[in-house]
């Protein structure tokens, strides 16, 4: 994915961010960090064209994106599953209109649920699942749409720390599993430990209107640990770019 010179101005006239250029490569996990209210979530949505950028263009595999597409799929901060649908039906939602038979849809949905570790939970309704399971359903739904890019807006923020930690450890393998079509992930998060644990590259937003003020390549082997000495070095670098909040 390649986003060129993206800017966004609220209807009130306030310019949120400007001159944003982001590109992601194959099997790359990119994170965006920045102070609260700076426009990270809005930026994420402009990348998926869920909010059209005021200026700039987004390309996917060389083609310009001009409307929302399941090729660039969004995972929400608030875990969104339809309460009247089972896990299976929630996932199948991404497959409607793709010309698949019921059997094919069931097959794909079941496999995707298995990929996210929910084998056996296909018939459960969201209210019968924990927060972590619901977020897995949301991830499975996003993956079932055969996305090329996954946009994740603080996907673990509403989970308890133990569940979040467990899911973080698994997520990289789930996303870049050979059975998925996924090429890259863009994550927005306030949790810098999470960002360092998952990312290949970190983009730091700051200023008003916001810009990308710094970029860090994270070169640590996986699985990563916060006890790794390089971890705190990267952390200090991010903090120095984030402060003062401009």
């Amino acid at each position: 994915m390649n986003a060129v010179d993206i800017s966004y101005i609220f209807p009130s006239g306030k310019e949120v961010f400007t001159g944003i250029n982001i590109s992601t490569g194959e099997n790359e996990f990119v994170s965006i960090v920045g102070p609260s209210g700076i426009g990270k979530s809005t930026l994420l949505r402009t990348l998926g064209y869920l909010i059209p950028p005021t200026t700039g263009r987004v390309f996917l595999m060389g083609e310009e994106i001009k409307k929302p597409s399941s090729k660039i799929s969004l995972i929400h901060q608030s875990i969104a599953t339809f309460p009247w649908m089972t896990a299976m039906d929630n996932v199948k939602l991404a497959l409607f209109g793709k010309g698949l038979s019921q059997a094919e849809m069931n097959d794909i949905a079941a496999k995707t649920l298995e990929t996210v570790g929910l084998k056996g939970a296909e018939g459960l309704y969201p209210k019968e699942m924990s927060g972590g399971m619901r977020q897995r359903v949301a991830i499975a739904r996003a993956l079932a749409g055969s996305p090329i890019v996954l946009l994740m807006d603080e996907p673990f923020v509403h989970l308890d720390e133990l569940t979040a930690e467990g899911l973080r450890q698994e997520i990289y393998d789930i996303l870049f599993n050979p059975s998925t079509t996924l090429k890259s992930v863009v994550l927005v998060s306030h949790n810098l430990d999470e960002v360092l644990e998952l990312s290949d590259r970190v983009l730091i937003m700051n200023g008003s209107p916001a810009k990308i003020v710094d970029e860090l390549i994270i070169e640590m082997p996986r699985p990563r640990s916060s006890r790794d000495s390089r971890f705190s070095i990267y952390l200090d670098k991010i903090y120095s770019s984030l402060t003062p909040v401009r």
Partner: protein
Amino acid sequence: MRSVNLLLIIQLAAAATILRVLFIILISILTGWLLAYASIRSSIFESIYIPVISSLESVPVITFFPVVLVIFVTRIGGPVGTELASDFLVFTAVVWNIWIAQYQAFKTVPKELYEVTINHELGFFSRMRHLYVPFSMPKIAANLFPSFADALFYITVSEVFSIGTKSFSVFGIGSLITRLVSLGNMYYVWVAMLTLAVWVALLTFVFRYIARITVAKYGLDTSAPIRRRGKINIMHTYQAWNTLTGPMKRLSKHFTSTFRVLPTRGNFGRRWNALSSSKRYIMAGVAAFILIILITEIALFVSSLPLNYWGYLVSYTPAIFYGMALDYVRVAIIALISLVIAVFVGYYLAVHQRAAVTAFPAIQIITAFPAPVYFPLLFAATFGYMYAVFPMSSEIYVLFLGFVSTFYYVFYSFWMGVQTIPSEFWEIMENHELRFFTRMRRIILPATFPYLIAGLSSTIDSAWGGLMIGEYWPEIIDGKTLEVNVGLMKMLDIFTYQGKIGLAAWASLLFAIVVTVFSILFTKKLMTMAREKYVIEEGVYAA
């Protein structure tokens, strides 16, 4: 009448009607506060009050008609009796929803605020003034417009009515228009309608303004649950939500608040056991006394009627049920048409904010303008063509009256339901490029199901008013009578017109029983199912 005088009379009549309606709304609000307070203080009172007003609300206004005629016109009589009869009919049109809204507001006062009033030992008046009354303001404001609209719908019925050969009327725009039409003074009919339209438009904007400022001042931030972004950025705040969804008379009772409810005061049995024995004896004595009086009154009334009179009433019962069945078919058609239009137009306006901003005030004004006032003119302009082309035109006219009297309940309800769909789900629909019918079938209709049931329930309840007016309308214009072949509402009209009040009361009673049973067996069950399964807000998990 001289033209200047007539113009003045029209202005005064419009003012009299509006003031009558506003005064009765005010009475409803004042009494509602006291009753709501009583119901949260006493679970015994609450367990009687809530079922009673819920049931009465689902009973169409017209079923109160015979009672009104008997009590106010026959027993009190004179101009006072007629005025009270008219006021009572308006009262039954406006009161139930306001009372339920106030009760809900009192019941859902946040625990923390309630504890502050306990902590500072506030008495009844202070607690009402500083907590309950302000907290109930947004809900009351949201109910002003629909109560006003509903009251206006019945002005032609409530300001002028006949029993047998005797006609009763009170001064107001409804009775004046009826008189002007009978005199064939069409120029002043138009002037009167225009005057009423100006009042309606003015008050619609006043109510919208009141709703906006009361929500801004008294609404709690914690109830602003939904954010929307981008193209589907419809309403950002509870304030806007409440202002635009004001016309939700009868709907609010179906939805529980997102606020934490006051700690429950325990069930009846536990509360009863907690009372001292002397209090228990006193309360049991009062209850027994009321019950004995009620039973005695009913027994005296029943025994006062000769046996053959009961036979006479029973002999009409099959015809009454047949008429009722046909009316239910009419109501079903009206509900179905309303539903289809509501879903398509409501969805369009929900996703096109600019259109909604201009369409909603216009729709509010149009729906508040009472159909019975302009309908005779519409009828006069079209009946020649209609009856020539469609032999069943009377049915079409009646269905139209029913439709315009009730369409907006399901329309607003559906629209409100669409508003509550969280932005995350809209993004999922766009993200996965779901087509219109997939969106409708899989997401929009299930998500709005509780709202649709509530809206349909209100639409069904209100459609009867349109049928009551349309099924039998003697002298609607130029000696022409609009009437259907068979229908319960027509029967009620004719029984009343012929002075057969006992028969009208009997038919009303049977009708009220069927409506209540329908409400319990159908509406409430569907609503329970909707609440259990189709609650879209539960789909967003945010710890």
